[in-house]
């Protein structure tokens, strides 16, 4: 037996460390995900509630097993917040799931970096989908994903508050909406809000700004997504609109609901106007089970030179390095099938992405009629291969304007500079 002393021990440890470091760094290169045993893994930020799990693990998996009886389906339930880190660590470690559910706007950045697989010919028949919903699944004329559900942003409002304030017409411009919010605001004697005119934290500030930008005819990027256009006069007008409610005294960033309680400030009368993702309305309708919870609430769209409806949602795609690609695409087909989509989206408050099914009477979301008629006004985020970086920069810039730390012009100039650096790295 070799004599073990401190020196030989240290030598052996150093050698082992160097080998292990080399191995771990080698793992940083491109590698394929699992699936050699015929299994298919799924990473999903939706379906996490009991009803969703029942659909995914029951009906959808059953449909998939019709063609792949021996394939195991391994599901990793996640949240939107941690999805980017799950994807990046999965890519780095070669453990990324085969089937991925991602957001609108995510396809160009990941497709550009060769992370998502282009759909095979058999899955490219997209005629049943709404055009506006299939557009975010494309990058450079190729389709990388199919939509599972859509989650547009609408403006919910309290009909009784409008009536009490004598507002009989819904706001049709930025100016009218700001005036209405001001009119609806009620303050306590000490100065705090008895009722805020609007809760601007109810929907993502970035998405509200993109909606306002579209409503006044502006655009975020050029068609290739490589030139910044959002710092135009329209961009400034849209940013002034979003930040203006705080300056008007109609709300503050502190007027906000608790996490996990949809429509809380609106239902409790803490605010009168509430820009929100439709899923929050749908979830409330599902929870209220046909009760009177939403009877007093109406819906409209942000409008300036035209109405605009932000359309977010979930896309289903396949990891380009999935070993069992055929099975992964079949699972994608099962997840996005019409019946599965309807069953999956309704409990979450989402709407199915199909042109004809949007009129389905079984959909419980009370904002559905407005949404169904407004797809021609839709706008989605993204469009740039650098979107995953750029999107994180936008909310701090808007917050800086709202809190008076920066002027609109300075915030947009700084945002443009950061966005151009990010685009330059592509």
């Amino acid at each position, binding site marked *: 037996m070799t*004599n*073990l*002393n*401190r020196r030989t*021990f240290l030598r052996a*440890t150093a050698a*082992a*460390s160097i080998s*292990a*470091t080399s191995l*771990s*760094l080698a793992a*940083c*290169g*491109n590698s394929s995900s699992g699936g050699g045993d015929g299994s298919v893994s799924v990473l999903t930020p939706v379906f996490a509630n009991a009803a969703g799990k029942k659909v995914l693990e029951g009906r959808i998996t059953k449909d998939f097993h019709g063609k792949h009886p021996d394939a195991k389906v391994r599901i990793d339930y996640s949240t939107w917040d941690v999805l*980017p*880190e799950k994807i*990046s*660590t999965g*890519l*780095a470690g070669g453990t990324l799931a085969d089937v991925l559910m991602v957001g609108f706007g995510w396809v160009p950045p990941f497709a550009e*970096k*060769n*992370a998502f697989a282009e759909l095979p010919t058999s899955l490219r028949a997209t005629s049943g989908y709404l055009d506006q919903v299939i557009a975010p699944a494309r990058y450079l004329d190729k389709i990388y994903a199919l939509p599972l559900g859509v989650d547009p942003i609408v403006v919910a409002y309290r009909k009784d508050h409008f009536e009490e304030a004598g507002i009989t017409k819904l706001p049709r411009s930025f100016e009218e909406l700001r005036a209405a919010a001001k009119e609806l605001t009620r303050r306590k004697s*000490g*100065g*705090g*809000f008895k009722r805020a005119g609007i809760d601007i934290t109810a929907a993502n500030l970035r998405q509200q700004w993109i909606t306002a930008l579209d409503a006044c005819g502006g655009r975020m990027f050029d068609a290739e997504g490589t030139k910044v256009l959002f710092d135009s006069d329209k961009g400034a007008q849209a940013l002034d609109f979003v930040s203006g409610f705080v300056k008007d005294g109609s709300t*503050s*960033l*502190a*007027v*906000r609901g*608790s*996490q996990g309680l949809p429509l809380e400030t609106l239902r409790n009368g*803490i605010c009168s106007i509430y820009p929100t993702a439709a899923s929050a309305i749908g979830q409330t309708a599902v929870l209220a089970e046909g009760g009177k919870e939403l009877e007093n609430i109406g819906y409209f769209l942000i409008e300036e030179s035209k109405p605009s409806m932000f359309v977010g949602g979930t896309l289903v795609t396949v990891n380009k390095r999935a070993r069992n690609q055929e099975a992964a695409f079949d699972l994608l087909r099962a997840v996005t099938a019409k019946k599965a989509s309807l069953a999956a989206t309704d409990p979450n408050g989402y709407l199915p992405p199909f042109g004809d099914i949007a009129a389905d009477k079984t959909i419980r979301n009370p904002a559905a009629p407005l949404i169904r008629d407004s797809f021609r006004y839709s706008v989605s985020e993204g469009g740039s291969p650098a979107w*995953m*970086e750029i999107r*994180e920069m936008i*909310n*701090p*810039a808007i*917050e*800086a304007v*709202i*809190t008076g*730390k*920066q002027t609109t012009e300075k915030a947009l100039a700084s945002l443009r500079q950061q966005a151009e650096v*990010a685009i330059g790295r592509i």
Partner: protein
Amino acid sequence: MSAPDTAPSRQRSPLRARRPRSLSRGQRRAGVLFALPGTLHIGLWIGLPVLAAVVLSFTDYNVFKSPEFIGMGNYQEIFSDGEFLRSLRTTLFYAVGTVPVTMALSLGLAVLLNQGIRGQGFFRTAIYLPQITATVAVALVWSYMLQGDGLANRMLNAIGIDSVDWLTDPSVALFSVILISVWQGIGFNTLIYLAALQGLPGDLYEAAAIDGAGAWRKFISITVPMLKPATFFVLITSTVGAFQAFDQVYVLTRGGPAYATTLTTYEIYKSGFSDFRLGVACAQSVVLLIALIVLTAVNTRTMGEARDGN
């Protein structure tokens, strides 16, 4: 001419002479084997990731392609990047706001708990409870209390003070995060101080009492100097903890509003998982590590000199 018995270059100074071996071969082998699990653990789970991070910090690595060596490129970028420097400043402010306050309050509480008051066990448990509660849960509860119409503002309103935008006003948000961190950090430090206090020799206090020293004089002249090792430990662990704070910011503010609470750890997280720039994130982590090593060295030196002076 005969050569000297021992060549000067090969002479060992008495200080550097090899120590006589007092352990047998079997004992040495046993020692190495006992050290092996710990060494492997540290090497594999701490040393190796640190080494990998240092290597990756010199590369352009974005998880979509293999790392490419770019020399000091990432370091040049982060030091010309306003966001990273701003996060370092915010972290420094956070540490300065958290560490001394936590230490002072912990010492005060430990002294109170050491007085043999009734219900001591209950108070000890109550003070230590925040430490063993998950930071995410703590932050979530605090976020409910600090929201616009939350408990904190209701209490302020009840005594005629206007509501404060605890987490949404850029000039207040960092103080709110500091407040929560202080509240959560007190338990552990109090326990360390309490253990140290209970080990102090009683005869010193008796002698001081005979000399006519009052409670304050005894605290300043006996307790504080005698607690120096505990203070040193608390200072190092609190400083390191402050520079590694992440959960509170992740749950409470997501670094906002307008970057007001973006600590360096959160900036690293953004670089790695939002921007997918792991090379840059590794460089930022290495800078944070170096900053911590420097701070610890300064603390060690300062506290060591103070101890020698005494």
